[in-house]
């Protein structure tokens, strides 16, 4: 058995050139083969990759999708983000628990099923959703959950749960998913296909010098679509100018921000547009390698995307002398993630690509100077790279005149929550929240979370504000909360998410988020005091200022923005102060244990 294990592991490692920096792929394959990474398996991997065993264990323990102990044959991951909660997710979860006879977090005695919670899997527009192994099931109901368990128990393969395929490429033979695209509005840049000429952007780019390509992107005023809005042309220039032995383009397709799913739709419907953009980026910065970092939750898209890459290789668009440009040898590989939100942070993502835990790195140096394997790297969002292709195809002038004059181009928004038409909207920059709410059929909203949990929650008085870099910047997540929603419960859910996803490296984020959540829980439980608000305000500033990476620097935002915009929600729950006494202290409660032990009542209460 153990000889056999070593042989299989050795085969897997050989597939990746026995390169320790490909450990993510090695572990992923080994995990797929054995169902978990046993101690013996970790030893074998360490030996084959000539790396300390602790590196393997460290990686396995970090990622939610890897296990060091035997897992059930069928792992059901229930997406438990706030939008799923709002769509009666609880009923679905309870049904799964009842039907399987286990609690979430447990495995059935026969080892057939595990139930777990997982944060947003990028299906908020078709919630409640779940991952059953790699298969996505959407729009769940209690009845559907019952049927699913029955089918799986009768021995059916999870893939068989998909009865009807979604629209567009979701029905492609390599995808075969029940996921639907829900493209509600097609804008000029990404989704309006009518005047799109595939390949023209790349052809035009290769006819220019790399410096000219960068200038075109700058002239178009393209800014990063992931949320931070850094000018893309400038990032490329820095990367190109940094000294290094090779350069890399990384596309960040780890869209893990709860409520975001627009990259999923791009990857499904516009993969060529994206890969063309990556190729242009590679040419502009002088890279030979591109990496698409695909989140583990989107594994169902991997065979399809690999196929698109193969087709591009076959038609000469990738590989030696890419697209016929002599001396330009560019290829793209897909790096699968394994369920870690923090890997959406670019330096953590780079760590993951290097076969390490998804720990963020200290910036500076920025990836443009020292990124993947210590060499200059440009990390761009999926949507940004799609814009690049179009800019090179239609010209920077065409692109920069779309939008509100300041922010150029269109923005893809993932809209979910309390609205009639959830889905992806490609809108020109400058649209107001109010206009957006009307489009989506959610005009009665009491609050909108712009930019996901790490963004901000705004109320009706701000609905006149614009979606653009200068006003309400967003990576694309828009969650709508209708009348009757408990906003503090939403904040609580977000904080729960950040506590779970903090990588634990730095104390402000690891401990600070926990303290924020604790104090929030106390207020929600009706035991909060006025001083708790001051404490929270102080704490959120500390966590923002002292955390090492973007996760901790933005994780207090739900509390910060609601304290600012919805302070009355907090104040309504506070206890009244009573002459210097702390109202939350309950002497009766505090002496209860002792009263029981001594069998007499306190003389003080």
């Amino acid at each position, binding site marked *: 058995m153990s000889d056999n294990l070593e042989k299989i592991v050795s085969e897997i490692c050989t597939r990746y050139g026995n390169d320790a920096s490909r450990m993510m792929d090695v572990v992923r394959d080994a995990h797929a083969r054995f169902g978990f990474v046993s101690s013996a398996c970790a030893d074998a991997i360490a030996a084959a990759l000539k790396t300390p065993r602790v590196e393997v264990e460290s990686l396995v323990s970090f990622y939610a999708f890897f296990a060091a102990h035997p897992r059930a044959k069928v792992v059901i991951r229930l997406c438990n983000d706030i939008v799923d909660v709002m769509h009666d997710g609880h009923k679905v979860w309870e049904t799964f628990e009842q039907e399987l006879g286990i609690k979430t977090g447990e495995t059935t005695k026969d080892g057939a099923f595990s139930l777990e919670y997982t944060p947003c899997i990028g299906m908020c527009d078709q919630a409640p959703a779940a991952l059953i192994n790699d298969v996505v099931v959407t729009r769940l109901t209690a009845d559907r959950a019952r049927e699913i368990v029955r089918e799986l128990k009768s021995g059916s393969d999870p893939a068989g749960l998909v009865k009807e395929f979604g629209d567009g490429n979701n029905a492609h033979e390599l995808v075969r998913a029940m996921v639907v695209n829900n493209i509600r509005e097609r804008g000029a840049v990404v989704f309006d296909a009518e005047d799109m000429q595939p390949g023209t952007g790349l052809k035009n780019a290769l006819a220019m010098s790399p410096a000219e390509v960068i200038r075109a992107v700058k002239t178009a005023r393209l800014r990063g679509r992931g949320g931070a809005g850094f000018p893309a042309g400038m990032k490329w220039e820095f990367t190109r100018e940094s000294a290094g032995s090779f350069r890399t383009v990384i596309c960040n397709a780890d869209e893990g921000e709860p409520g975001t799913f627009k990259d999923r739709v791009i990857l499904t419907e516009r993969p060529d547009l994206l890969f063309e953009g990556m190729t242009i980026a590679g040419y502009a910065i002088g890279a030979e390698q591109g990496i698409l970092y695909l989140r583990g939750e989107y594994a169902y898209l991997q065979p399809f995307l690999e196929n698109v890459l193969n087709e591009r290789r076959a038609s000469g668009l990738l590989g030696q002398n890419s697209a016929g440009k002599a001396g330009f040898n560019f290829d793209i590989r897909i790096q699968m993630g394994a369920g870690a939100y923090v890997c959406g942070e670019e330096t953590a993502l780079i760590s993951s690509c290097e076969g390490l835990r998804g720990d963020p790195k200290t910036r500076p140096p920025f990836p443009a100077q020292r990124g993947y394997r210590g060499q200059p790297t440009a990390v761009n969002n999926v949507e940004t790279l799609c814009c690049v292709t179009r800019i090179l195809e239609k010209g920077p002038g065409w692109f920069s005149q779309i939008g509100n004059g300041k922010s150029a181009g269109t923005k893809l928004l993932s809209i979910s929550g309390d609205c009639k038409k959830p889905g992806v909207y490609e809108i020109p920059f400058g649209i107001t929240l109010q206009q957006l709410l009307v489009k989506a059929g959610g005009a009665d909203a009491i609050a909108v979370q712009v930019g996901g949990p790490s963004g901000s929650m705004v109320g009706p008085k701000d609905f006149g504000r614009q979606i653009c870099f200068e006003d309400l910047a967003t990576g694309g997540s828009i969650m709508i909360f209708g009348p009757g929603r408990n906003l503090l419960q939403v904040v609580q859910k977000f904080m729960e998410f950040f506590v779970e996803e903090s990588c634990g490296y730095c104390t402000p984020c690891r401990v600070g988020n926990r303290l924020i959540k604790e104090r929030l829980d106390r207020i929600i439980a009706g035991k909060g005091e006025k001083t708790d608000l001051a404490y929270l305000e102080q704490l959120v500033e500390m966590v923002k200022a002292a955390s090492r990476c973007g996760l901790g620097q933005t994780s207090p935002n739900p509390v910060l923005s609601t304290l600012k915009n919805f302070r009355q929600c907090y104040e309504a729950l506070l206890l009244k102060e009573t002459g210097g*006494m702390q109202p939350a202290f309950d002497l009766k409660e505090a*002496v209860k244990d*002792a*009263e029981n032990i001594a069998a*007499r009542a*306190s*003389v*003080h209460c």
Partner: protein
Amino acid sequence: MAKPKLATASLAGCFGCHMSILDIDERILQLVELVDFDKSPVDDIKEFTGRCRIGLIEGGCCNEENVHVLKKFRENCDILVSVGECATMGGIPALRNTIPLKECLDEAFLNGPTVHNPSGRIPDDPEIPLLLNKVYPCHEVVKIDYFLPGCPPPADAIWAAVAALLEDKPIALPYELIKYD
């Protein structure tokens, strides 16, 4: 004009902070010029005789009597200061906070390796205050105005703080007085 009054108490503490108060040495003569001691173990006055300007609290609250005393201090003092680690955060006594009260008492009076207790009873005389389910820092029970860190805070720090409060000036604690390595 009557001198302002100062009161002190040791709750769930070890009296170390009070020792540190006494450690101001001959400045205690200066202190007596500035204030009258009211309820305090220093002069053994048991009950408040009037409104006090400053109350210094050592120790957190581990039993119902601590809570009672602390509330009396809040009612009678203009300014209440948590002095030292135990008052501020619960300190050593709070190490029991992760263990259920019953287990603590069983270990202390029944099961501990050095316990000799033929009666098998946990002390339950009505004179003994009931313990709280856990040890609370003072600010979780009443509003506290200032916190003086240290275990104990050095006499110079206590002196600087009390003097500043009496003179109604900002407390300037030099680095040497609040570093503990």
